[in-house]
């Protein structure tokens, strides 16, 4: 009788991680950055109809990098979870922390138990009532979470972007204009060509809005902001 083919757990996990990383490395990057009035999301996304940034709940936004069908199903699951929870309890009880935990559990389980890990990285942000109350979460394919307060990035060039931002971003919370310029420049730094404004998907969680804080910033408005 032939022996079953043995692969050590270390080797298996390493192979899976490499596979997932390779998939994510192909994806374009997304940055989330706290600004004076909320949180800004900027994605390098030339498509005008397929979005990478989306609203999850009143003050929570989601964005995914990597394989589209995978982060899209995660996005939907997040919205369903948030809406059920908000209906069962109250709207204030829906938090990014619990969603991030849910995503982490799920990606972790898929990473260790399924045939193929998800080739995605997620970014979840919740705008707080004051700037020091913002929460940003970055969740990786294996379920690991990193939480930040000021900025974070996901996608293929995320490490390079983070290094650049750590150097460039001052201690003070930037204005919307400065934040947008900085995000735009960092895309330029990590790739060969600067994506023009048309190639960016921009959205904000604006704490001054009543109720649902999420808002897409269309091209015309982006031009006005940069003027």
């Amino acid at each position, binding site marked *: 009788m032939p022996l079953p083919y043995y692969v050590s757990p270390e080797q298996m996990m390493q192979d899976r991680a490499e596979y997932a990383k390779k998939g994510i490395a192909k994806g374009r990057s997304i940055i989330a950055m706290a600004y004076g009035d909320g949180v800004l999301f900027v994605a390098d996304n030339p498509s005008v109809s397929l979005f990478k940034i989306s609203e999850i709940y009143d003050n929570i936004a989601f964005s995914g990098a990597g394989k589209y069908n995978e982060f899209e*199903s995660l996005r*939907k699951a997040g919205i369903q979870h948030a809406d*059920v929870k908000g209906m*069962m309890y109250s709207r204030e009880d829906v938090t990014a922390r619990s969603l991030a935990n849910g995503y982490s559990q799920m990606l972790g389980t898929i990473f260790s138990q399924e045939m193929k890990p998800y080739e995605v990285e997620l970014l979840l942000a919740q705008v707080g009532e004051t700037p020091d109350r913002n929460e940003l979460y970055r969740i990786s394919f294996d379920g690991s979470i990193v939480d930040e307060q000021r900025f974070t990035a996901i996608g293929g060039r995320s490490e390079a972007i983070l290094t650049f931002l750590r150097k460039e971003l001052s201690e003070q919370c930037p204005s919307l204009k400065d934040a947008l310029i900085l995000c735009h420049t960092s895309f330029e730094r990590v790739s060969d060509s600067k994506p023009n404004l048309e190639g960016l998907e921009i959205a904000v969680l604006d704490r001054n809005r009543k109720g649902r804080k999420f808002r897409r910033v269309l091209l015309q408005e982006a031009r006005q902001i940069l003027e």
Partner: protein
Amino acid sequence: MPFETPFQASFSLDSHSSFYHYLSVHKPELLPMAKWHNLINPSISPGGSMPTQVPPLPHGTTVLAFTYQQGVLIAGDRRATEGFQIASTRMEKVFQTDEFSAMAIAGAAGPCMEMAKLFRIELEHYEKLDGQPLTCEGKANHLGQMVKANFPLVLQGLVVIPLFVGYDQKRESGRIFKYDITGGRYEETDFHAVGSGGKDARNSLKEHCKKSLPEQEAVRVALRALVNAAEEDVGTGGPDVFRRIYPTIKLVDHQGVRDVEESTLASLCEALITRRQDE
């Protein structure tokens, strides 16, 4: 709450954008109607007698809607009755459901509010999943389905009759939809009112309501219709100037939904009362 796993459930091919559908498949216990239905249903024997009616419970009464120059107005009184008692004097029966629509409800207060809440989540859920809001027509049809799902409860006396208004951005006009208890959907072009004082409010609207009414005048007409209904019907509450309880009035136009301020309502109500005294 312990992290439930609706996550797993969503990995199916049927990608409905309906929250109502999602609940009915994955969390039926959260649907108020489904749960009640199961509780009540065993008592219905086929061909047998009707089950006993539920004991008295709060009922909301008159709500109305009509189109005016810029869009559509929707209003309701604030009284809820429980048999011959007044259950509440400050009940809200008019709800904003999304940026360009609102609904008002008459009937059993509990299921009414539940339906309004669910419908609001439903519209938001669809918008988030699909990336764009439903059309005005789509919203109206969907509400009809929810009313239809409530039908078993109607047989128990838990009637929910909504009135739905929306600003149709394509047609650039306000629209009114009324429903019957089976979920039948009918569009009204000018005005409609439902609830125990609905008929009186309609009579009043018939006299004063015109499509060309400017905003301020429309608010006046709505107030007058509600006052007339309150005078004729015990279930409808008029404006209470002592406690500062005024009807709820919402305006839906191309800019969205907005409330008529309480201060405006107060001065209009007082003007109306003085005029009545002089008459």
